């Protein structure tokens, strides 16, 4: 092990980013349910309340609509709140403030105000928490002009994109897959940012482009590694931001590989896969396609409690391997 390579978990990386943001800017503060002495439902805020006090690490009552609105109001008037939802599913309770207020306030007021609020959403399935605690709702918010929506897939990006979000003058919604919180990876010390709106090529390849989001990035990389032995050379694009989407990186990759597979956990239809497919179909990359575009997404069902059903609801590595192999070999 190289001593200079410092590893943190995804959750620790977020916590470090929030601490740095609070150190750098006294306007930054945290709000959410049980983020103080409890440390957050997923221990992301951890002991920050001990270090920054209850004035900057604020436990709200169980009031998502009000809490999100208070964060929006504070953001409009000079503060820089980071609001934690306990589960992304509870965005449903706060949609009014997010969609009708935060997203549109600057526009409606003719640019007279900005809404520099950051909202964090622990998302996704895989914990046995059933239908109301397992959803992937990022595309809902991705559909709303005025919001920026990101899905960091690594500890490195979780920190850098959060710091970019705090510095951003507009509302940034961060979807964090709960199963990533324990993922370890290299995280540089100190302040750095990872740009919002820029995809990252995680693995270069010639035969097929997989565009993946969040936890599906690692699964796509695992699938790509498994197919290497079969002589299939896969490029994996980590989309990272779903609004604004990085069209060019996707288009350039498909022009190179001539095949596209989109992999995401959210319900397949009307989701991010449709958007990525369409942007390729509408672009010059269309002429380069050697095969139909394929989407692998969640089943058309709420997330079930039974663990085997739950696993079957979202794409797994073997599903990606099979779809990628079929695409490259022309089996359709």
């Amino acid at each position, binding site marked *: 092990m190289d001593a200079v390579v410092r590893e943190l978990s995804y959750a620790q990386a977020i916590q470090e980013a929030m601490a740095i943001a609070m150190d750098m800017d006294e306007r930054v503060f945290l709000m959410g349910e*049980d983020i103080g002495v*409890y*440390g957050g*439902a997923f221990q992301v805020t951890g002991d920050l309340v001990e270090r920054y006090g209850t004035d900057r690490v604020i436990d709200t*009552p169980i009031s998502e609509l009000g809490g999100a609105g208070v964060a929006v109001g504070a953001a409009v008037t000079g503060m820089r709140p980071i609001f934690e939802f306990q589960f992304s599913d509870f965005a449903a*309770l706060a949609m009014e403030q997010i969609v009708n207020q935060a997203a549109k306030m600057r526009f409606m007021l003719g640019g007279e105000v900005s809404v520099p609020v950051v909202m964090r959403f622990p998302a996704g399935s895989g914990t*046995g928490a059933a239908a109301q605690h397992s959803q992937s709702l990022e595309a809902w918010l991705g559909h709303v002009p005025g919001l920026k929506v990101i899905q960091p897939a690594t500890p490195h990006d979780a920190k850098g994109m959060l710091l970019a979000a705090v510095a951003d003058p507009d509302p940034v919604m961060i979807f964090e897959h709960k199963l990533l919180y324990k993922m370890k990876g290299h995280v540089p010390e100190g302040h750095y940012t990872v740009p919002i709106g820029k995809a990252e090529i995680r693995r270069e390849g010639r035969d097929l482009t997989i565009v993946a989001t969040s936890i599906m990035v690692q699964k796509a990389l695992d699938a790509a590694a498994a197919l290497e032995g079969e002589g299939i050379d896969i490029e994996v694009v980590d989309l990272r931001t779903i609004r604004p989407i990085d069209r060019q990186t996707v288009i350039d990759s498909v022009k190179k590989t001539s095949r596209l597979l989109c992999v995401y956990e959210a319900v397949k239809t009307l989701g991010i896969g449709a958007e990525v497919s369409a942007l390729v179909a509408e672009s010059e990359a269309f002429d380069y396609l050697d095969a139909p575009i394929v989407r692998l997404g969640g089943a058309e*069902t709420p997330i079930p409690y039974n663990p*085997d059903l739950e696993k079957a609801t979202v794409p797994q590595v073997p599903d990606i391997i099979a779809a990628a192999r079929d695409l490259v070999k022309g089996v359709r």
Partner: protein
Amino acid sequence: MAGASKAVADSRANLPFVYRQYRPEQLRHVLHKMYLIRRFEEGAEECYMRGLIHGTMHLSIGQEASAMGICMPLAEDDQITSTHRGHGHCIAKGAEVSRMFAEFFGKTTGYCKGRGGSMHIADVAKGNLGANGIVAGGIPIAVGAALSSKMIKTGKVVVSFFGDGANNEGAFHEALNMAAIWKLPVIFVCENNGYGMSTSTARSTAVKNIAERAAAYSMPGVIVNGNIFSEVAEASFKAVERARAGEGPTLIESKTYRHRGHSKSDRNRYRTKEEIDDWMANRDPITLFETELRDFGFIDDQGIQAIRDAVAKEIADGIEFAKASPAPEIATLENYVYTEQA
């Protein structure tokens, strides 16, 4: 024993409400069910620790008198909406522990066919419209059920259980107001166990007693000691009478305590061990009720032991039933998303 119990029964006029209102065998059955709730949750907890049940669960150990007291005056077709801490409500409303265990084990014989788990446990046939993963999610639904009752003239009364944390959600306030303006047959039961996860009511809630919020919606607000079965049952009885008479809703605040952590990932950092120990040692609702029953001559030690033995067997049988039941086929993944039509 028989003679003593007869003498006590003659002087029942001086005893608390439930001893005047219900027959001795009914009260012994309440003790049975309180034990059933306790042992069910202990059994579920153990299965969870042993990796037989996945996900998470919220135990209501310490709150059994509240669930049983509220459900005591309800008829079988009256309805309830419940919460994430809903095992006790489910059993109190008449569910079988075998099918509850089956649900926790994710089996097709479970009340939700393995789709819901602990947090969505329900028993629609017995009037339990479901636990809820969303804090305060069931409150407006209960008001809607009460609206149905009024429109269809079924005479049903609906109880909405929720926690102290739920009273800070908008849904609570909107629902109470509608129930009041339309005089609906619904009873709002706030089981105030002092905390919403880690946040005490003192930190989360502007009023000292949640029952005070009833005033804002022009309905009676009643505070009861939620660990004393008779007190809870009496308040529920009056609220049910009022609801059935078409006089509208009641808010009951049942003050209680959960012995266990919020869920399986709670380190209890927000409360002291002394506080927990005090509630367990001095205000355990089962101990309180059992002692009362014995003191008043409604049961003897042998009777208590018989209940405990019967409950232990019911729990063991329930777990066996769950283990032996079939798991759902993967091919059925998309069942129940929509109503099956011919």
